[in-house]
């Protein structure tokens, strides 16, 4: 396994509450990513980071924010969760971009009621 830990692994919460998911890596990789996986859509990029305090938006970033204060930690926050954000969230890491393979954690299963 690629040394990626996601927490929590499962969470159930209510609409309108804030939620923070954590990704922790032990590989010292520069790039970190948050994806969501939904049936019929495959994996879609939410946000990514290319260094400490350096982040940018992905394809489906609305309603999400991220922060990276240390190389090893990348946080994903849903400021006010909605039912459409019920999904499985995956963190990935890579040494670089464009041609560097990404390695994934085991995901967080988030249900918003």
């Amino acid at each position: 396994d690629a040394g990626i830990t996601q927490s929590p692994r499962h969470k159930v919460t209510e609409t309108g509450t804030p939620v923070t998911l954590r990704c922790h890596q032990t590989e010292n990789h520069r790039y970190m990513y948050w994806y969501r996986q939904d049936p019929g859509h495959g994996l879609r990029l939410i946000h990514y980071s290319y260094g400490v305090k350096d982040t940018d938006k992905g394809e489906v970033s609305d309603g999400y924010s991220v922060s990276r204060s240390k190389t090893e930690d990348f946080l994903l926050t849903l400021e006010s969760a909605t039912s459409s954000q019920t999904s499985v969230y995956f963190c990935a890491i890579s040494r670089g971009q464009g041609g560097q393979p990404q390695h994934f954690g085991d995901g967080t299963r988030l249900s918003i009621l």
Partner: protein
Amino acid sequence: QKEVEQDPGPLSVPEGAIVSLNCTYSNSAFQYFMWYRQYSRKGPELLMYTYSSGNKEDGRFTAQVDKSSKYISLFIRDSQPSDSATYLCAFDQTRANNLFFGTGTRLTVIP
């Protein structure tokens, strides 16, 4: 037209069969081609990675890329029940910030 098309299956085969999984793509900028395997309730695991047309073999697995047809394949020889998983194709391009994934093909190998 979607950038990546992958038959979702499901695909069921007997143990020992040869399995063929396929994806088509439309973006000519894709230069790197990957196959991930995803077991239930787990994250995608990189299985094969290539950046050129032709074949790449790793044990029972062969990845094939045809850039002219924009078509990639994964072949599994002597399939085993432990190969039962969802297989995702993925594509990357130079200086890209994310991978482009197929929706996955669910494979079941029956003992």
